[in-house]
């Protein structure tokens, strides 16, 4: 039993790193121990710049592969698998009740499965590799109750953008965010991952959904380890409770250069852009690509828009391939990228020139993130981005559904 505000030392169940494992290895060597304490808890997934776009990235990947072999780390996923948050979930390390620390801010994603999952820096991962321990402050909890039914053309992305826009980028700083209520229970696992992923954009330490039948169904085919479902106490204390009826929420867009600069689509309709991005760890799952394909089927994207599609993982890629989704997207003029982080963090595969604008399903629109500091990023749902790609300007997806 712990209480909010207590500082405790824990031994996490799994610790994630990605391409930044190369830097973590450097820090780990400085500690002066020869072997990692618990190799089976280390999960390394190469995703940020895959395949290597330049020699320095290639060297990082090589350093990581050599370390994995040297330390006998069993859970290593090379460049063919996809984005760490999707791959770690599919490989079923994201289990109810597990404590997962990751050197990536969107580690919060695993809360969709009822895990406690939080982002940390590289140095902390190096220290965990050596000690199998980390200090954590037990967070207060912000409860977000979602009621009602989402309207056609509205998805989980619109809900979380609306919440962040209303409450600000630091509303949940250092807190746990529990998503609950009938509309949360109605959501697919993929949609829950959108909310848990973007809880990071409210400053949250972690997101959380109570595991239910959908969670168990997802885990049934996958779970490799035992797990224990951890739920909120009936008399749990909350920092606050925010209540939303999703029925009245319209499609939303986060405008440059902060994620909380959110406006309903009808207010920003008509803004032109040069590149569209559909995918990423936020919105790169089958339901996201399928809604885009539904809108783009038999049509061509606007000739002045480069439309990039970024499936979150190879599993998603194959599912979308078998379902004919990738064919529809390719026929409409989209560029299908390999599963990975792509241009989201500004390293490769679609970098913006000065004066260019992107409409993206990713989770961050900070100045300069996807290229030039003179470029602009708008964030929206897959349906909004697909509809907008057809017209070359921000467009309400409801007219295409």
């Amino acid at each position: 039993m712990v209480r909010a505000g207590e500082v405790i030392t824990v031994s996490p169940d799994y610790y994630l790193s990605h391409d930044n494992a190369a830097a973590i290895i450097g820090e780990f060597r400085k500690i002066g121990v020869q072997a990692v304490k618990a190799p089976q808890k280390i999960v390394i997934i190469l995703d940020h710049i895959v395949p290597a776009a330049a020699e320095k990235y290639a060297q990082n990947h090589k350093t990581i592969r050599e370390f994995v072999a040297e330390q006998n780390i069993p859970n290593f996923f090379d460049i063919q698998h996809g984005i760490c948050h999707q791959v770690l979930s599919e490989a079923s390390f994201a289990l109810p009740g597990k404590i997962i620390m990751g050197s990536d801010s969107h580690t919060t994603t695993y809360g969709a499965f009822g895990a406690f999952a939080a982002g940390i820096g590289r140095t902390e991962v190096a220290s965990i590799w050596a000690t199998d321990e980390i200090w954590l402050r037990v967070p207060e909890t912000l409860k977000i109750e979602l009621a009602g039914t989402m309207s056609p053309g509205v998805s989980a992305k619109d809900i979380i953008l609306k919440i962040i826009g209303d409450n600000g980028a630091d509303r949940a700083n250092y807190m746990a965010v529990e998503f609950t209520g009938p509309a949360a229970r109605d959501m697919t696992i993929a949609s829950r991952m959108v909310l848990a992923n973007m809880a990071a954009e409210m400053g949250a330490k972690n997101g959380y959904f109570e595991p239910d039948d959908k969670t168990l169904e997802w885990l049934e085919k996958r779970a490799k380890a035992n797990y224990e479902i951890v739920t909120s106490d009936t008399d749990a204390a909350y920092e606050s409770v925010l209540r939303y009826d999703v029925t009245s929420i319209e499609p939303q867009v986060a405008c440059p250069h902060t994620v909380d600069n959110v406006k309903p689509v009808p207010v920003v309709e008509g803004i032109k852009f040069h590149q569209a991005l559909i995918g990423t760890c936020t919105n790169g799952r089958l339901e996201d690509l399928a809604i885009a394909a539904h809108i783009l089927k038999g049509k061509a994207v606007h000739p002045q828009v480069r439309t990039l599609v970024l499936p979150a993982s190879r599993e998603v890629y194959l599912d979308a391939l078998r379902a004919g989704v990738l064919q529809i997207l390719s026929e409409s003029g989209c560029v299908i990228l390999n599963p990975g982080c792509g241009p989201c963090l500004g390293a490769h595969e679609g970098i913006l020139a000065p004066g260019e604008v992107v409409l993206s399903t990713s989770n961050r629109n900070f100045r300069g993130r996807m290229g030039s500091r003179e470029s602009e990023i708008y964030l929206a749902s897959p349906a909004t981005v697909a509809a907008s790609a057809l017209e070359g300007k921000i467009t309400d997806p409801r007219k295409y559904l």
Partner: protein
Amino acid sequence: MIKGKVWKYGDDVNTDIIFPGKYTYTLMEPAEMAKHALEDLDPEFARRVEPGDVIVAGKNFGCGSSREQAAACLKAAGVQAVIAKSFARIYFRNAINLGLPVLQSGEASESLQPGDEVEIDFAGGRIIAGGRVFKFPPLPDSVIGIIEAGGLIEFTKKKMQTRNRARLDIE
């Protein structure tokens, strides 16, 4: 105490504008990182910052990515402390783990102006600017040990050495 001048910025200064993502996997040397510090927020900063200078900002400083270079590049640029109304969680941890002091003071954040000369009394928990004195809360006990050791890597190194010695004694 070191005297430095204030560089003042607003709310929600994020990790991407402190240290752009395009450099996160290519620049490894602190001196190189320093050249790009705050590049997308204030291109003048890296050219004109001097050792001992202080960054003063509003709420939620360091929000966004977990990239540690956003703390490392400021330390490498000679920044002696960041003073803000509040800090994003991961940034706060990263800064401590790398030995960059992060001080929470809403009053100093409001009052200090660009170019003001400040001194910081870390032991006494005071920010001194001319005749003005601002207090900041002492860091939690759990992190003081990390700072005293000179950062998390040194802290862990000492901890592991102590544990190994204890084990040898038993054996």
